[in-house]
């Protein structure tokens, strides 16, 4: 297991930037998800780490050794990094057990030990019964697990996964989440997991790096991303809710800033003294008939156990949860509390981008 360090990592394809000065440190044994809209550079970052692409600038270090940048380049076969491809990339002419034992054959592991390690990897992924099958005779989920076993069998220093569940149906995805978590617990491998499904990222990862146009916007634990987004993009991309621009009132409390939000003064948490926006999560909104802030219900969907309301308050669209169904067009009173304020002067531009992705 090794830590991964990206410093000022940039990549251009024929002049067009795909990654722009990425700086990140992934601790040994950490499970990190790369989350971002299509085309933001997630796969590119993964392929640079694996050694399939050369960086245009910057450096990559694995376990303290520089593998790319600074005039040197370690090819993929010498990096000791395992990859699970979206297409699985199983070799169709090799049986399941031959696929899994190949990394050990390449390393000239003696036959007896090889057999033992292959069996262990297969049983860990629940594939013992399929050892002699050919990849074409497996279901999607089984193929995925073969790819995982092939990766696990040679004790890679880090495991990279590029949208490993994109080709599977919903039910299978949930069960594969279990497999990945188990895999991570058992091996303690450093894992870098690419996905554009935020549910997957928030559920699986120790930390999530949110990317947008080749940059890492925020790199933090899932709950921090949700509660304390650094800018409009992260606030809009991760989790439900709304982002509204605000004006500071200048009052500072022990518990935060007093802000003017939708005409109301609300106490908000913040990391800056001069915020420009607040993130209003559904949990921050309480419906109450006598509240002065009025909002019109524009949509109501049942989520199981509660309703999700879309509200129009002072021209902004908010999201709230309710126990009872609301009729569209009805007016309700809302109270805001526990908001998170941040500074993002270019915010509106980014909001449009988020909407464009939605």
């Amino acid at each position: 297991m090794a830590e991964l360090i990206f410093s000022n990592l940039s990549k251009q394809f024929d002049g067009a930037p795909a990654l722009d000065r990425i700086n990140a440190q992934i601790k040994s044994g950490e499970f990190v998800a790369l989350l971002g809209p299509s085309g933001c550079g997630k796969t590119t970052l993964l392929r640079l780490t694996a050694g399939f692409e050369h960086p245009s600038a910057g450096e990559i270090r694995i376990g303290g050794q520089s593998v790319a940048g600074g005039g040197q380049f370690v090819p993929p076969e010498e990096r000791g990094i395992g990859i699970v491809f979206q297409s699985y990339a199983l070799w169709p002419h090799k049986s399941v057990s031959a696929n899994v034992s190949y990394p050990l054959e390449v390393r000239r592991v003696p036959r007896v030990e090889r057999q033992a390690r292959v069996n262990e990897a297969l049983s860990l992924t629940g594939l013992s019964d399929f050892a002699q099958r050919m990849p074409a005779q497996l279901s999607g989920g089984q193929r995925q697990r073969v790819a995982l076993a092939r990766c696990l069998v040679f004790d890679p220093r880090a495991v990279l996964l590029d949208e490993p569940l994109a080709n599977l149906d919903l039910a299978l995805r949930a069960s594969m989440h279990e497999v990945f978590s188990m895999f991570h617990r058992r091996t303690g491998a450093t894992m870098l997991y690419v996905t554009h499904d935020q549910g997957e990222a928030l559920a699986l990862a120790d930390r999530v790096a949110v990317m947008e146009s080749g940059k890492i916007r925020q790199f933090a634990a899932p709950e921090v991303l949700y509660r304390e987004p650094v800018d409009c993009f992260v606030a809009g991309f991760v989790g439900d809710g709304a982002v509204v621009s605000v004006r500071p009132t200048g009052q500072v409390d022990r518990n935060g800033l007093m802000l003017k939000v939708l005409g109301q003064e609300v106490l908000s948490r913040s990391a800056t003294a001069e915020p420009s926006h607040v993130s209003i999560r559904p949990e921050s909104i309480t419906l109450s008939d006598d509240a002065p802030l009025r909002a019109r219900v524009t949509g109501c969907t049942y989520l199981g156990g509660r309703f999700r309301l879309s509200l129009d308050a002072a021209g902004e669209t908010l999201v709230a949860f309710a126990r009872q169904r609301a009729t569209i067009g009805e007016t309700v009173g809302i109270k805001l509390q526990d908001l998170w304020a941040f500074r993002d002067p270019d915010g509106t531009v980014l909001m449009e981008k988020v909407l464009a992705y939605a």
Partner: protein
Amino acid sequence: MTKTFFAKGSSRSLDRLLPLILLPVALIALGPVVRLLLEGIGFGDGFTTDHLTKVLTRPSTGTALMNSLVTAGGGTLLSVLIGATFAFLVALTDIRGKGALVFCLMVPMMIPPQITALAWMQMAGPSSTLLKLLGLAPPLGSPQPLHSPGGIILLLGIQHASLVFLTLRAGLRMIPADLVEAARMSGAGSLRVWAQIVLPLSMPALIAGGAMAFVTALGNFGIPAMLGIPAGYATLPTLIYQRLVGMGPSVLPEVAVLSLLIGAIAIMGVLFSRSVLSRKGFGLVGLSGTPLALSLGRVRGAVEMALWAFIFVILALPLFALLATSLIPAYGVPLTFNTATFDAWKEVLLIQPGTRRAYGNSLMLATSAATILLLISLPLAWLIQRRPNRLSRILDALIDLPYALPGVVLSIACILTFLNLPFTELTLYGTIWIILLAYLARFFVVMLRPIQASIAQLDPAMEEAAASVGARLGRRLRDVVLPLAAPSAAAGAILVFLTAVNELTVSALLWSSGTETLGVVIYNLEDSGETVMASALAMSIVLLIVLLMGLVQAGAKRLPKGVIPWQS
């Protein structure tokens, strides 16, 4: 567990060495063509156009050019007629037994032209064993009707009909079925749909196929050599052959000009056909893939009968005639139960040193060419596909040239290049190596394209997965690329073998005593009146070809599209 992950050095040496194969490949494949171009402008004696003007203004050049254009043109018309009829019927209608029909139509393309000519000659004329058998032979002394421009046109037309067929059928498959269905819904009958919708839409493919048939007919040597030379009727390829064989290497500068002339016409034809195909003309939208199946109704049986009868006449009948001739004791003797004998077969396969040597040479050349090309093409195709650079792109674009150019052109180019090996006193002319080098250059693309197709279809992630688990380039090529490209490579190798073992045009100009090939020996046997032995030898080759074609056909399901030339 501890492991050293960063092994030092050595690892990527193959990565650096591999691109070096581009250079010899470019030299062998393209060097001779470049050398020939230089010869045209007086390479060696300073820049001059003297040869050009001298040769081009000579009357024999004009006659041969005229004859070439007439026979190739006439043959093309016939090819278009046959190929288009088959393509329309096979692709658009509900006739049965399409697979077998197509296979039979393709056999003439794979049978070498001199054998085709020999077989047809056994079917006509006063000495035809078959006609005698049936009591239909014309009186002795009457001329062989095929020794004429008409005969050449007839055989060229049949030989290259499959080219038109394949191009047109591929074009027809692109026509969306719903276009036709829309027309039928508007009340158009089958014939009207064909004339007003299908025919206009398939015109580009038809023209392109015709252009290809023309170029191939223009370069054909075997048919005009067998049928034209006895009648004193020379085309450009036979003129080059006769001059070179008659006068030796001293006429090289002259014949170089002749071959440039025919090469130029061929290139124009190829470019024309490509541009017609790429300028699709119509933006075809809609769901293609649903095969059209216009119902022929009650005439279906009759149409099927007619097609099979035609196949019988162009394929079975000549081969029967060839077989009949191969079974008689001496030319002119009628075939009966009492006269039938395998003597000629025994003679050519077991006794005659000349024919046995030719078999040995041809098999050796074909095997070597197939093996060497197989070994080079795999890494080469991988390089072109995965590590493109300027040289590999140029090579990719031009490697068709030695195959597209008529065989005589390549032969002359090879003689020019290898007559005096650069920087040495050695010559390859007269040795078997010059034939091998010419085969390598000519058949490169036959081997390369199938492998390229299968590597292009290979998900790069397969190789990346192998790299990520620690396999270096050499192992990746061996363990991942090779096994997955193997079916195509095998098909390519068989195709090279098939084409090389029958080759006549190139070896006719490059052989010398001791290095004769099967193609040359058949021609020489017939030339010296040993028709029976020529027939036996030819028949044995036909059997070999059909066997090999069947072998490729049997593996067809595992090959990428476009690998087998007789499928599309």
